[in-house]
């Protein structure tokens, strides 16, 4: 059994950024394990541009963005193993993986969870109807088109206004498919405003809010869908049904952190994020197991994934060197208008960045962090959208006790 300082599970943007940053902090006995044949994760199929504005101050396509980190991994000769699937992580940081060489085990001082997320599927939505071919999640359609050179559609309907769905609306249109409409069950879009503009409006693709698909038709291949309006409790309104003939339904209905391995390791998950509960060091409840990126909470921008993983790596490097990290006994609670925060616990001994999402659109508000009623940090928002992650910095010298921090919208 090989001993490693750090085993990184996943070679996507979070894993790559963590590896490079660990290396820079002097931690060299690292191994990245990646189940695909290539490093880069989902960015390999995200060929559109718009990545990198925060991290690199320039706009890049997904493959180029991943390529920058991959080049650093190569230049630093950071060890990685592709075509290798991690099967188990134990709470004492024994990592079991399988590759073409067979079963391998690593004993790690620290494990970094960087497995990313999965798409929510038709099964999770429970849309009634037949089960024909032609119903794809947006990411699957994207892989067909951008990785395997397969055109999956001619007449398309999209359910869900997630960013990948809108990006696929444009991509399918550019390749000659006809995208009839995007339907969103919620009263507000779930993706970024810029994607509504440049992926839908630019190509005359209508977006219908408060609508959902209530039936799927077709025996071998999809022949059409029934669309209904929904009421304020998101229930379909009888009598509003409309039929759309199509051969393909693309689903862009949410992403779920991929935490099966984390659960095996004894990591406590937060039901709100479906990712781990972490402290300001991105350490989970299991000492020496860290998580960052989409496995922790779904991000809208890869730049923030990389930057979060880099912060994680700074803490993980310090953990490997010192064998411990400061305790984080201060809990962070939220009011009902905030969906969740990352981290959920802090030490109070160092400045930290709070990431959060609101549950619904709130105009002209302030996000306020209080301890014992005393305001210790705030951010003014002209418009707070669930689609946009909000970040603010909390200074250590403003935290005066170990009492909980309350985050409110005011």
């Amino acid at each position, binding site marked *: 059994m090989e001993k490693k300082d750090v085993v990184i599970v996943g070679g996507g943007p979070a894993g790559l950024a963590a590896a490079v940053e660990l290396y820079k902090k002097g931690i060299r006995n690292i191994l990245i394990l990646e189940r695909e044949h290539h490093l880069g994760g989902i960015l*390999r199929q995200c*060929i559109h*541009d718009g990545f990198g504005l925060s991290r690199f101050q320039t706009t890049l*396509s997904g493959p*180029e963005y991943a390529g920058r980190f991959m080049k650093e991994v190569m230049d630093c000769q950071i060890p990685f193993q592709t075509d290798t699937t991690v099967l188990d992580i134990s709470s004492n940081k024994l990592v079991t993986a399988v590759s073409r*060489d067979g079963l391998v085990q690593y004993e790690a001082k620290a494990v970094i969870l960087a497995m990313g997320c999965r798409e929510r599927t038709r099964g999770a939505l429970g849309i009634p109807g037949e089960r024909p071919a032609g119903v794809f999640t947006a990411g699957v359609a994207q892989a067909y088109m951008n*990785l395997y050179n397969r055109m999956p559609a001619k007449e398309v309907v999209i359910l869900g206004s997630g960013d990948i769905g809108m990006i696929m609306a444009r991509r399918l249109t550019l390749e000659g498919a006809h995208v009839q409409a995007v339907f969103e069950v919620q009263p507000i879009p779930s993706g970024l*405003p810029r994607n509504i*503009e440049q992926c839908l409006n630019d190509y005359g693709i209508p977006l219908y809010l408060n609508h959902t698909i209530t039936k799927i038709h077709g025996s071998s291949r999809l022949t059409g869908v029934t669309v209904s309006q929904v009421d304020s409790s998101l229930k379909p309104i009888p009598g509003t049904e409309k039929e759309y003939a199509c051969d393909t339904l693309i689903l862009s209905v949410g992403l779920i952190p991929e935490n099966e391995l984390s659960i095996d390791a004894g990591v406590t998950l937060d039901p709100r994020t479906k990712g781990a509960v972490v402290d300001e060091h991105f350490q989970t409840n299991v000492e020496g197991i860290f998580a960052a990126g989409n496995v922790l909470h779904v991000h809208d921008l890869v730049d923030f994934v990389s930057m979060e993983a880099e912060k994680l790596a700074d803490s993980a490097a310090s953990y490997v060197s010192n064998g411990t990290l400061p305790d984080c006994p201060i809990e962070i609670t939220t009011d009902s208008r905030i969906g969740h925060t990352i981290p959920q616990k802090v030490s109070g001994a160092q400045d930290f960045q709070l990431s959060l999402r609101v549950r619904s659109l709130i105009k002209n508000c302030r996000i306020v962090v209080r301890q014992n009623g005393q305001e210790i940090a705030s951010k003014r928002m002209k418009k707070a959208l669930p689609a946009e992650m909000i970040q603010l910095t909390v200074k250590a010298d403003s935290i005066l006790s170990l009492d909980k921090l309350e985050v409110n919208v005011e």
Partner: protein
Amino acid sequence: MIREFTCIICPNGCEIQAEIHDNVLVSMTGHTCPKGEAYVKQELTDPRRNIATSVLVKGGELPLASVRLTSPIPKDQIFAAMEIIKSISLTAPVQAGTILLKNILGYDSDVIVTKTVNAAYDVAPATL
């Protein structure tokens, strides 16, 4: 006339209200950086967009190499640019950063490869 814009330059997606007379910008609110003003002026006179797509690769470990334009071109030229890019085919290996076509349709914009595709025979072994 007041026209609304959603700035697409960065993920903030500022919602801009612009007062426009005879297609000339008089005043605007809602933008949070100078790029917003430049975007609205560009939208009024010559709206431009970037596009990303792929080209075929023969003998590669992948069938496609992704490409993009180095700068945006007029919006109404996007499908014409797609046709031109579609006619390009490459032989592996292909290096990210390679310029495939300079000044597409006469604009100051090049078609650039964004993904390295190795030849099928020199695929790296599973362990490095």
